[in-house]
């Protein structure tokens, strides 16, 4: 194995360079910037590694001992594939693609798919299948061969793979001196050998691990970060240390547990739901569990040498991100970390923070590399083809991008009226006599053999609706169908007979019996509303390649490697709690990362279905934009504060000081200070004579201006001006000023004239039109005037209105009413057809003519009082004051100064600088003080007032109870408990009441629960209101009503019935929620109950404790707590 040796050599070489580096550092202060040196060295070693890996590649080729499992030799439709490819290539050359044509040529039904036999089985699944086989479930295995499908670390078959760079930094804590002697334990033998050549970033990261230093790996999902994690595990096991692997999601933990268990065997799992072998050396857990372990001081914290944080970019999650931050801060100081993250631009900053908090060097290994390059296409809705916008070299294609957007415009405008408010109509229903877009899309994908495909949409319902449209399609052959059925049925055997039927499930797909036919046709749905078991079966089937077309929500984009060849975005907007927004480039990167299977596809395909007017820059940003940076979402919770206060060394302030939030704030300080200095210098350099009187004059001008604006606002309010905005009306407009941030106050605004063509109401996205009165809505006026159209580099068209006499095109532009300056009393005749350029040019000429006729005086304007009949008091007042001001101007001496204009300009500049300095100083002040200082104070006040802690920060009895509760609102729940609410009610009622704490989804017309439950709920609301009110009094920022409303009674009835012992299908009849959501809620409820048991124990209330325990036993049964298939 020459390759093996090469790798070792490489590792040693890197070792060597590391040592050299240390040597340098020891020798003197020559090296000012250690990280720079490291970077340089890294480059050196990276190039070394590159050559080494090349060597390895060559060796392999010579020896040809690598069976290259992924070359598509055995695929029967190998002949058809190139055709598809060719077509695509041809199409992309033209920038657009007529797939319809292709469809006709090749016949529309796709048969050959069924012949596919490239069903590879990963070890995991093979094992599973074996188990099933033993149990007599699966009788015949599909061709297994050596074909491996799911294996991210597979060597790429294409030897022409471009060697990619990775960036390597090291962050040293301030004042850190590198240990003088080299690490004692250099193992010649790596802890784990991989059957393939490591990518540079992988070997780089592993070198860091071997040196016993923390590392942050930032790379795309598909790049193979898991290699680093599994090496860390192997290394810890070798050294007899414990290692912890945390992931953000329970399901992911389950999967990872399975994966590691196969490999290392000494692996345990801890999630809120299950605990398996907690004494194992390698523990897989959710981050929440790890945090609570640290609070409680588990012995594991003293044995863990390595902690792997997977998907650490979750730290920016608004709600849960703080868990990561706390876990990292609280982690034992002697342990080392492996952070795996999606690409984040500020990985270095993160590493600096870790280095500072833990006083240890932290490496950053960053790579942009994708093993399979991506091509991005746009599919305009209602359009008929794909447009390649980013090719696999990462080049953005301006021309075809424009074309795609042009293809979109007519369709949206044509149906604007019809589709009002139902944007998705075209997507789902399709126009009469046509297939829906999504159907066309899938058909095309199948024809081109771009499958398997994942289609992302942003709502569970949409996801299902789209899947239902595929009902006509059949993508699987008989054998595959059999396999699916067997796998499916054997999985479902875990369920009881009642659950298996789930006959009247509200959602078609969730009824177990209805799902199968769809799956058998190769179509799947994956979202959080599914039964967990169904979700897992679908995941398994997808990994097996038995599902060709998967409709999924965003949740599918994180976690285990489940790539497809193609990813489709059925929508480009998502609802994020309170409004629709464009998906961010970071989200786009994450989701598109699912495209392209390493070693199988030579490139991944990413299709964006654009279905509404989209700013080109938005689209470009989305497709080409940078990854989201990792920003702290730190916030304080009472549970955190109490847990910190409770322990002798703990101090919430210390936690805040160590938080990433504080770190980021502190970092900005030097920069801000520099800014202030610069600005102050600039301000001082401006010297003005007679500054005081100038200031006076300036203020007068300001006043005059604001009054004028006031008047204008009144005159131009839609109520007043709409009747006069007939076509042909001459209006004056503000020219679009060139630099928008600096509008000189003193210069008369540049005005131009134009003709009104039409006006229309601006549609606001969120509120429905009926609720807004016509007077209150905002309007846009279409005006014919002279414009300059410019295109900037990204292809964003910017239209600038210029004075009539200047060079430009006559165009009809839509401007908001506020941009209209005055309305004249004249109307001109406009020709019927304005489309030809001459017609417009002529009309503008007429306007010019009219203007010149009136000459100096200017056009007669509509008189607000006489013509427009404006009689509001505010108008009269304002106009009187304007008159008064104007007379003051006359008297002002400085007005006569010849240089007044320049002077004013300078003065304004000075004013602006002052304002800027002030605002920067403010931010500076807020960042120098401890972040959250006031909030911490306020929250401590709350805790004191409620009797949770004393003024000496000693936690009292109630505080100890609240310490135990981390899965629900700790204050409200503790108050409820101490008010004896749980004491006298029945267990079912109690469970039902507790369900309000764990249910967060909003349901619009949820039925009210029955009276006794409603009564309880009202009690809860009262308590919550009291708690919120108190917090408000203590100056915690909180919206009382929305806090109260955050407790939702929607699933009370269902949970009540569940606790009563109803079957799952019975409770699904009661409520309208998704099965999966309900199951998750009940599982979380059990978590809360467990915490309550601990709480009751700590106050010595045995009866209550018994009651909670009974509650647990009542809800913990059947399908809701069915074990994961991965376990």
């Amino acid at each position, binding site marked *: 194995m020459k390759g093996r040796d090469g790798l070792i050599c490489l590792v040693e070489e890197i070792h060597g360079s590391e040592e050299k580096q240390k040597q340098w550092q020891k020798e003197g202060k020559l090296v000012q910037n250690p990280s720079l040196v490291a970077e340089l060295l890294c480059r050196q070693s990276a190039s070394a590694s590159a050559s080494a890996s090349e060597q390895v590649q060559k060796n392999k080729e010579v020896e040809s001992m690598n069976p290259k499992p992924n070359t598509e030799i055995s695929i029967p439709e190998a002949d058809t594939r190139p055709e598809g490819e060719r077509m695509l290539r041809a199409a992309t050359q033209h920038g657009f693609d007529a797939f319809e044509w292709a469809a006709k040529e090749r016949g529309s039904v796709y048969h050959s798919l069924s012949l596919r036999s490239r069903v590879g089985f990963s070890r995991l699944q093979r094992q599973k299948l074996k188990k099933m086989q033993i149990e007599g479930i699966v009788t015949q295995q599909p061709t297994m061969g050596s074909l491996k499908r799911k294996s991210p670390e597979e060597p790429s078959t294409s030897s022409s793979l471009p060697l990619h760079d990775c960036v390597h930094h090291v962050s040293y804590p301030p004042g850190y001196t590198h*240990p003088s002697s080299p690490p*004692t334990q250099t193992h010649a033998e790596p802890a784990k050998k991989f059957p393939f050549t490591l990518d540079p970033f992988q070997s780089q990261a592993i070198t860091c691990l071997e040196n016993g230093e923390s590392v942050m790996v930032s790379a795309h999902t598909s790049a193979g970060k898991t290699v680093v994690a599994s090496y860390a595990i192997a290394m810890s096991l070798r050294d007899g240390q414990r290692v912890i692997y945390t992931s953000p999601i329970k399901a992911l933990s389950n999967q990872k547990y399975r994966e590691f268990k196969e490999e290392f065997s000494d692996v345990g799992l801890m999630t809120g739901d299950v605990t398996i072998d907690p004494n194992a050396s390698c523990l897989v857990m959710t981050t929440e569990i790890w945090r609570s372990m640290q609070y409680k001081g588990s012995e594991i914290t003293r044995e863990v040498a390595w902690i792997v944080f997977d998907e650490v970019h979750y730290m920016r999650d608004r709600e849960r991100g703080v868990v990561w931050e706390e876990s990292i801060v609280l982690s*034992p100081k*002697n342990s080392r970390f492996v952070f795996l993250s999606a690409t984040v631009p500020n990985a270095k900053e993160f590493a600096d923070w870790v280095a500072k908090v833990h006083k240890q060097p932290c490496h950053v290994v960053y790579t942009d590399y994708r093993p399979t390059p991506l091509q991005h296409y746009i599919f305009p809705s209602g359009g008929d083809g794909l447009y390649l916008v980013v090719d696999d070299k990462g080049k953005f294609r301006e021309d075809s991008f424009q074309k795609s957007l042009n293809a979109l415009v007519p369709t949206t405008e044509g149906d604007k009226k019809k589709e009002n408010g139902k944007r998705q109509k075209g997507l789902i229903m399709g126009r009469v006599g046509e297939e829906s877009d999504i159907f066309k899309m899938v058909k095309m994908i199948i024809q081109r053999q771009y499958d398997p495909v994942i289609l992302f949409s942003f709502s569970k319902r949409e996801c299902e609706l789209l899947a239902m449209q595929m009902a006509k399609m059949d993508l699987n052959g008989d054998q595959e169908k059999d396999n699916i059925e067997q796998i499916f049925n054997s999985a479902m055997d875990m369920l009881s007979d009642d659950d298996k039927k789930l006959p009247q499930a509200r959602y078609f797909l969730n009824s177990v019996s209805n799902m199968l036919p769809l799956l058998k046709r190769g179509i799947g749905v994956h979202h959080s509303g599914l039964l967990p078991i169904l979700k897992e079966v679908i995941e398994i089937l997808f990994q097996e390649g038995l599902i060709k077309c998967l409709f999924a929500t965003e949740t599918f984009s994180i976690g285990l490697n489940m790539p497809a060849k193609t990813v489709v975005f059925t929508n480009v907007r998502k609802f994020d709690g309170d409004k629709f927004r464009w998906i961010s480039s970071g989200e786009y990167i994450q989701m598109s990362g699912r495209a392209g299977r390493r070693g199988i596809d030579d490139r991944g395909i990413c299709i964006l279905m654009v279905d509404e007017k989209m700013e080109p820059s938005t689209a470009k940003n989305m497709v080409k934009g940078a990854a989201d940076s990792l920003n702290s979402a730190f916030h304080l919770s009472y549970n955190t504060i109490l847990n910190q206060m409770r*322990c002798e060394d703990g101090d919430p302030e210390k936690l805040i000081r160590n938080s990433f939030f504080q770190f980021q704030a502190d970092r900005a300080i030097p920069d801000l200070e520099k800014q202030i200095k610069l600005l102050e210098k600039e301000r001082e350099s401006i010297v003005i004579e007679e500054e005081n009187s100038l200031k006076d004059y300036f203020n007068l001008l300001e006043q005059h201006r604001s009054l004028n604006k006031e008047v204008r606002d009144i005159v131009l309010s839609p109520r007043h001006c709409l009747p006069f905005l007939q076509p042909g009306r001459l209006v004056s407009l503000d020219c679009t000023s060139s630099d928008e941030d600096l509008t000189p106050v003193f210069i008369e605004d540049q005005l131009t004239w134009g003709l009104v063509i039409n006006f229309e109401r601006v549609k606001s996205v969120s509120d429905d039109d009926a609720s807004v009165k016509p007077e209150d809505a905002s309007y846009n006026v279409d005006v014919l005037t002279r414009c300059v159209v410019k295109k900037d580099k990204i292809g964003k068209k910017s239209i600038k209105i210029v004075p009539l006499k200047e060079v430009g095109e006559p165009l009809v532009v839509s401007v908001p009413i506020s941009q209209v300056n005055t309305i004249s009393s004249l109307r001109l005749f406009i020709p019927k057809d304005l489309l030809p350029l001459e017609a417009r040019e002529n009309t503008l000429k007429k306007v010019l003519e009219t203007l010149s006729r009136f000459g100096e005086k200017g056009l007669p304007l509509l008189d607000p009082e006489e013509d427009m009949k404006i009689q509001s008091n505010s108008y009269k007042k304002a106009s009187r004051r304007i008159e008064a001001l104007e007379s003051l101007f006359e008297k002002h001496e400085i007005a006569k100064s010849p240089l007044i204009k320049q002077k004013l300009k300078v003065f304004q500049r000075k004013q602006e600088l002052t304002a800027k300095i002030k605002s920067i100083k403010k931010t500076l002040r807020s960042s120098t003080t401890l972040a959250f200082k006031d909030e911490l104070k306020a929250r401590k006040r709350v805790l004191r007032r409620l009797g949770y802690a004393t003024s000496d920060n000693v936690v009292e009895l109630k505080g100890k109870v609240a310490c135990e509760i981390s899965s629900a609102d700790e204050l409200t729940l503790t108050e409820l408990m101490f*008010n004896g609410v749980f*004491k006298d009610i029945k267990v079912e009622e109690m469970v039902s009441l507790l369900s309000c704490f764990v249910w967060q989804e909003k349901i619009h017309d949820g039925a009210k629960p029955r009276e006794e439950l409603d009564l309880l709920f009202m009690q809860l609301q009262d308590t919550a209101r009291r708690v919120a009110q108190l917090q408000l009094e203590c100056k915690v920022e909180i919206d009382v009503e929305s806090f109260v409303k955050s407790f939702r009674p929607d699933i009370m009835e269902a949970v009540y019935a569940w606790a009563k012992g109803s079957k799952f299908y019975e409770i699904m009849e009661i409520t309208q929620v998704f099965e999966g959501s309900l199951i998750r809620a009940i599982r979380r409820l059990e978590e809360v109950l467990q915490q309550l048991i601990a709480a009751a124990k700590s106050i*010595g209330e045995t009866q209550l404790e018994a009651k909670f325990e009974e509650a647990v036993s009542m809800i913990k049964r059947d399908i809701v707590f069915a074990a994961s298939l991965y376990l």
Partner: protein
Amino acid sequence: MRGIQLPLSKTQKVRLQKTLEQLESLSSKVNSDASVIIADSIPVNHEDGVLKGHGTADLNGEVVATLCGVVERVNKLVYVRALRSRYKPEVGDIVIGRVAEVAQKRWRLDINFNQDAVLMLSSMNMPDGVQRRRTALDELNMRCIFEENDVVCAEVRGFQHDGLHLQARSRKYGKLNRGQLLTVPPYLVKRQKQHFHHLEEFGVDLILGCNGFIWVGEHIEAKDDMVEDQVSQSDPQVLLHNSASLEEQEKNYTILDIRKYICRAANAVRVLSVLGFNITLEIIKGIIDLSLSMNLDIHEMLGSEFCVLVAEKEAERRSSNKKKR
């Protein structure tokens, strides 16, 4: 006289009596009528649910005290706080214990609770600061860390299936050397934010264990465990050097002055214990200062005169505190 056993002269007796009366009048009387003895029924409003906490039981529909003590109420929760009892551990308490037994992977510690507490080997930081699983060898070497009768400081971690568990979160927990262990009734030590104290002016460490075990010893520089460990972990030579110097230090005597201060502080605690006053840092400091200003010898601190004086001072302090409020 609350059972204070001191050989008092007549005047001292009168003075003490007076002081105690004064103290009593100063104490808040909120709960004075709530003291119960066993089987007393506790008046509660049964209409809206009552939570029966520690020291209570249900007897024929009545809430009955199972302890002698004071009834405490928090919202709807009713519990009895025992006046004098053994130590009752709570999670997060700082306790001091004496090693009773070295057992399988654990030490058993006497912490004045009704059962021995367990300190697992894995709940201790390894002396070399390395994070790793404990091996059989570590188990054999357990006596290198703690032997029987060593005095150990730890934090209460919680009740596990096999008893009360302790843990040592950081380096400041662990074996206590060169000092005195005093035992006082646990109720005299109130829970506070800080239980570790360093009396800088005397070079003395004071640890007020919640279990009524109080440690007064020579000050040991709190090592910044992070930096220290880094050195020790990466450089065995430094480690060796360190341990050598530790041994050296061990041989070194604690200097006489500090030993005197240790005794003084210990006697201050003893005085407070005899008088039955709460033991806090502030009061201990006050007593030491008092004894120094009076130029008392250490042994004289335990005399009746000084006790009475301390009681008077305390009464003075409390009343002035009260006035301030």
